[in-house]
């Protein structure tokens, strides 16, 4: 990560003045050589185009090809969160030169054609599986493509230390021209090696030089790494006691340097005390928190254990509650089914607190129903009574009328019979003398009997007239 800058290279080497002078002059040369660099960049780009067709940028951003970074647009890290709707459903990264199918599903052009090429003869949309063909792809409007190219990404060389955030469309330009961490061809004409752009001056940094400490041949580019790493002799200045310590001893030195400022060992439990190591021992012996530290740690462990147990129990509880809810639901559905079958005319929808109150209210409703029915029954009774009375009255009158008619008929019959009898008697008187007195007597009888029915006939006709009128 830490590629040495020119300044670091300079500072790390106080002893070799020759080298530092050279580097200083190189740094001045760097500013002068901008135009040269630009020329070189143009040259590089031309070479890039030859070497690297744009479609083959699909290798991990960790690999380099002859010093030049080869990066995969799908592995770029986005600086901001990208809307989910802009994600290709196949590669799950924001669309790269998107293409749409007839069914309006959108994919990266490359993803889509690869997916279609893996299908059999009947090509279908990967999302909705509607039939389609590889030549029915339609590019998306330029506006959308531009917006996608403007998404901000981190430089693919972020792992080397570049902190630039750039629009996605400019990544190649950034790498080709500006990124200080991109490897470029060494400016020296004799050298065909590469070095980070930010270190590229006029001078070749690959030339082997003796290490000022151990004398081993090291290139200037690697000098700092060498002195920090493999060089056994180089001395490091302790930042605390400012004594220079050989690198091999340095590890031991930092853990024992008396000048190092330390925090109290109980600092995580609230002790703010800081002091040099030489004084610290005294503090530790008197600090109450240090003495408490083991207990506190134990307590913390226990608390953690309890929290875990609690979490476990809570999860269990949640499961049980969910179960209880389902049980309640089923009970409620059963109760409502009961209500529906009982088909009460009123109040059936009212919620009931308990089965008992439910039954009580049912009972009450039924009682009301019964009283209503009995009232209706007595009403009907009265109605039928009056109707019966009315019809029987009429029948009685008719019967009386019939009686009257019958009596009249009987009178008439008697009169007719007696007149006939008189006729017979008269015929007998004409036949014998003895019979005259009889005839007279009979005729008297007939007269008296004929005199009697007349008024009764009149009365009968009257009665008849009355009956007819009544009938009308």
């Amino acid at each position, binding site marked *: 990560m830490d590629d040495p800058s020119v300044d670091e290279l300079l500072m790390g080497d106080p002893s070799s003045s020759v080298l530092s002078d050279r580097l200083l002059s190189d740094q001045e040369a760097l500013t002068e050589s901008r135009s040269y660099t630009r020329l070189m960049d143009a040259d590089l780009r031309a070479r890039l185009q030859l070497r690297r067709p744009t479609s083959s940028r*699909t290798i991990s951003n960790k690999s380099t090809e002859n010093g030049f970074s080869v990066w995969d647009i799908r592995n770029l890290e986005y600086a901001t969160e990208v809307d989910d709707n802009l994600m290709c459903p196949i*590669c799950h990264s924001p669309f790269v030169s998107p293409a749409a199918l007839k069914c309006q599903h959108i994919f990266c052009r490359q993803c889509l054609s690869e*997916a279609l090429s893996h299908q059999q003869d009947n090509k279908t949309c990967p999302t909705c599986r509607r039939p389609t063909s590889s030549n029915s792809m339609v590019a998306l409007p330029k506006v959308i493509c531009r917006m996608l190219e403007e998404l901000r990404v981190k430089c693919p060389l972020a792992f080397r230390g570049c902190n630039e955030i750039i629009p996605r469309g400019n990544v190649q330009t950034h790498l080709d021209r500006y990124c200080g961490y991109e490897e470029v061809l060494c400016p020296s004409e004799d050298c065909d090696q590469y070095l980070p752009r930010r270190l590229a001056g006029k001078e070749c940094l690959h030339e082997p030089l003796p290490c000022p400490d151990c004398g081993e041949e090291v290139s200037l580019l690697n000098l700092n790494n060498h002195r920090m790493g493999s060089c056994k002799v180089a001395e490091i200045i302790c930042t605390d006691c400012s004594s220079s310590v050989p690198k091999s001893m340095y590890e031991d030195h930092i853990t024992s340097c008396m000048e190092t400022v330390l925090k109290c060992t109980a600092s995580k439990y609230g002790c703010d005390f800081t002091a040099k190591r030489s004084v610290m021992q005294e503090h530790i012996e008197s600090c109450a928190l240090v003495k408490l530290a083991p207990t506190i740690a134990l307590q913390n462990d226990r608390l953690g254990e309890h929290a875990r147990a609690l979490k476990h129990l809570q999860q269990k509880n949640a499961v049980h509650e969910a179960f209880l809810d389902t049980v309640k639901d089923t009970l409620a559905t059963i109760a409502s089914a009961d209500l529906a079958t009982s088909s009460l005319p009123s109040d059936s929808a009212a919620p009931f607190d308990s089965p008992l109150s439910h039954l009580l209210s049912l009972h009450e409703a039924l009682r009301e129903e019964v009283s209503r029915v009995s009232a209706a029954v007595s009403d009907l009774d009265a109605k039928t009574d009056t109707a019966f009375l009315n019809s029987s009255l009429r029948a009685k009158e008719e019967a009386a009328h019939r009686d009257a008619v019958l009596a009249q008929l009987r009178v008439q019959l008697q009169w007719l019979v007696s007149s006939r009898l008189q006729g017979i008697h008269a015929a007998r008187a004409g036949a014998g003398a003895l019979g005259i007195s009889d005839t007279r007597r009979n005729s008297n009888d007939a007269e008296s009997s004929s005199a009697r029915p007349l008024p009764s006939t009149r009365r009968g006709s009257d009665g008849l007239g009355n009956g007819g009128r009544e009938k009308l």
Partner: protein
Amino acid sequence: MASAAAGLLGRQLKQMQTDKDIPGISCGLVDDNVFEWEVMLMISDEDRHYGGGFFRARLTFPEDYPLMPPKMKFESPIFHPNSIQFSSPDTDSANLGSSSKVYPNGEVCISILHPPEEDKYGYESASERWSPVQSPETILLSVISMLGSPNDESPANLEAAKMWREDPKEFRKRCRANVRASLGDE
């Protein structure tokens, strides 16, 4: 090419590990290899047969993922019409019919895990097979739903499929035994 798949898998794994909306699925890598996932399926209690079980499975992704489907294999014993049962080799060969031999033990046989261009079994139409828009998440959700309602049309475990159809009680018993075993593994 291979690293495009690796990048995609890395992103999907990260997303699944950070996503809190997926209940009952946890996943990680086997030997830090992004093409080998170890997943743990926690089946919800509502499932009649496997409810409450913890089943370990392994997803193996091909180099050309997502164009080709991953393979999924249960590592916990599971008795199910659509996954080859763990059993000793002799019963294994006795149980398995012609097509099922293709799979080693525990492998899951569902249509969305079958590559799009071939249909060895002639059972399912292309519309049910792998599509690159599927993700590990959708696969695992399908598998969980497969556990709840097996597809006995194309069984991988003939015995299980037969029992599922003809003797549901015994089938359930075998499943509960799996669940208990999976909890014992913990």
